[in-house]
């Protein structure tokens, strides 16, 4: 399907926080209580509309376990957005955010938009991390923040779309070099003004449509 832009996202965070469930809720609009442990990388894709433009999101869901960390790290490259997820019912997943953030900053391009996601908001009775703590962490590190539930779908749509809006704004401001595929953005065939084109760019458009 034709799109104006393609954004690549990566979902990171400790194992069990709900990364795969968030992706499934966003792409398929369903919740699967028992999800297989992700041991490699899994992909999802969905079309959204921002500012009247069709944008294709290509989402990489990664394995959170320590033993796969070096593989996961190698996937930050070429991502325009990252969803950093923790579980509000497990404080340790919140405590590990700093490590994840360091990893992300070190291995991604500096303009990558990071959305901090506090998942499992439906489990209010088992909450271990207050919403204010998440907000404070996000503010301190310059991240966007949302509480979501992959189970009830609360805020899931918003989390993915707000990240895309932020990326889109950065494109408008000229922060992203959209002709460099390493930034996780591709220009689609239907884009009205694809910017300065070279042979490289023409190849990209061709490769992405099939």
């Amino acid at each position: 399907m034709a799109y104006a832009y393609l954004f690549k996202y990566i979902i990171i965070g400790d194992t069990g926080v709900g990364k795969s469930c968030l992706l499934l809720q966003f792409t398929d609009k369903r919740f699967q209580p028992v999800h297989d442990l992700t041991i490699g990388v899994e992909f999802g894709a969905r079309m959204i509309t921002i500012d009247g433009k069709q944008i294709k999101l290509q989402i990489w869901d990664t394995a959170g376990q320590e033993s796969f960390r070096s593989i996961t790290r190698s996937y930050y490259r070429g991502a325009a957005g990252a969803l950093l997820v923790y579980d509000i019912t497990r404080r340790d997943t919140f405590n590990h955010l700093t490590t994840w953030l360091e990893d992300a900053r070190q291995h991604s391009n500096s303009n990558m938009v990071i959305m901090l996601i506090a998942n499992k908001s439906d489990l209010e009775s088992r909450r271990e991390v207050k919403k204010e703590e998440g907000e404070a962490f996000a503010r301190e590190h310059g991240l966007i923040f949302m509480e979501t539930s992959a189970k009830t779908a609360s805020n899931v749509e918003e989390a993915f779309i707000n990240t895309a809006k932020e990326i889109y704004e950065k494109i408008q401001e000229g922060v992203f070099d959209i002709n460099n595929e390493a930034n996780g953005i591709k220009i689609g065939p239907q884009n009205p003004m694809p910017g300065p084109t070279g042979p490289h760019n023409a190849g990209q458009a061709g490769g992405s449509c099939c």
Partner: protein
Amino acid sequence: MLTRMKSAVANFMGGIMAGSSGSDHSNGSELPMRFPYVRPEFLGLSQDEIECSADHIARPILILKETKRLPWSTGYAEVINAGKSTHNEDQASCEVMIVKKKTGVQSTPNKTSSNKRRSSLPNGEGLQLKESTEVDGITFQYWALFDGHAGAGAAVVASKLLHHHIVEQLQDVVDILKNSAVLPPTCLGEDPETTSANSRTLTRAASLRGAAGAPGSPSTPQTRFFTEKKVPHECLVIGALENAFKEMDLQIERERSAYSISGGCTALIVVYLLGKIYVANAGDSRAIIIRNGEIIPMSSEFTPETERQRLQYLVSPTKEALVHLFLNIFLAYKTIEEDDLKFPLIYGEGKKARVMATIGVTRGLGDHDLKVHDSNIYIKPFLSSVPEVRVYDLLQYEHGADDVLVLATDGLWDVLLNEEVSEAVTNFLACCDPDDPHRYTLAAQDLVMRARGVLKDRGWRISNDRLGSGDDISVYVIPLIHGNKLT
């Protein structure tokens, strides 16, 4: 493969390159594709997933999904190249097949989805405990890797059809194989002198000289577990595999008139049949068995360098052939300086060696339209579709959970030695739960990661800051312990 080919040609011809390379429609034909570009069927990828996987920047390592199972809990992982071609030109297939005696009408492998195929997904779980001598047929397990060059066409076609050719060939001998009391016809003339040190190599390909003493397998341990005389049943299977390769190649040649089948491919296949593992190889992929930490090479590579003898043998015995060859070159180059007429049969050395400066593998399928650059000389007569077949008796040894057969395309072996692969697999498996069904897939993922490396400022790097592989990399890790259950 393509990059190497391109640069060799470019070097030779002074930088002039005809046609585009990344695209698979470079032959400019309007013919429909025989099969659309795909990834291995057993990966079960959607179109979106295939699109994501073709990321030359992050190079995601694809593995078998948790819900998919291959025969014997085989592990599999692959990664795309670093940008040399749009597509991943490696292909793989894995099947459980049944051979039944031919009944009257001849079936052609063109018509797939016949009853020969037991299930659309190679999920052999239910089959593997039933040993293969059923009343009405013989079951075999099949694993295959194809490394395409100059387009994905031939590799895709071979991955879809080669196993049907194998069934077709085995149908002729199924009665003899099933009934060990029946004496098979005499084995076709093999060349005993080409028997290699570590495993018996029974192949007519070997008699074309050149297979023996092939380099590329750094270690050749003196394991001699094949001490008994040649077993005629083996010869029948080996002959069937050789013929299947030839038939596959002929089919590609025939169908070129109706379809666009781009490029060529190497083929490395494993068949498990009646207690024995057959490894058939045409090209530069490689198979090794890692048993109790010991390496047993199960294939040798066929490149211009390793096949120097066969290629020269093709030309030298008859002066006529030589004259003919040079006549062709003269005709093609009559306007060129004398210096350019010295088109060597083999150009370059080592990994860079090319047949007439054009192609880096000397055995494989396809390449029927390949010509020496800027000329009308076809390369195909110098290539061979006949595989070298090696046999391993699975039942002669009690295998442990960490004993495996590793198959991989040259993307892995270009950067890792057999010893490094063996050590990595052995260490990896030692750390995982022996009952974890994913352990072999995780081991394959680990191998791909070690060969791909990580992207640094100066390109993809692996351990000791060596250059990682920028090629497509595909790896099977096949546990041999299933052989124990079969006895």
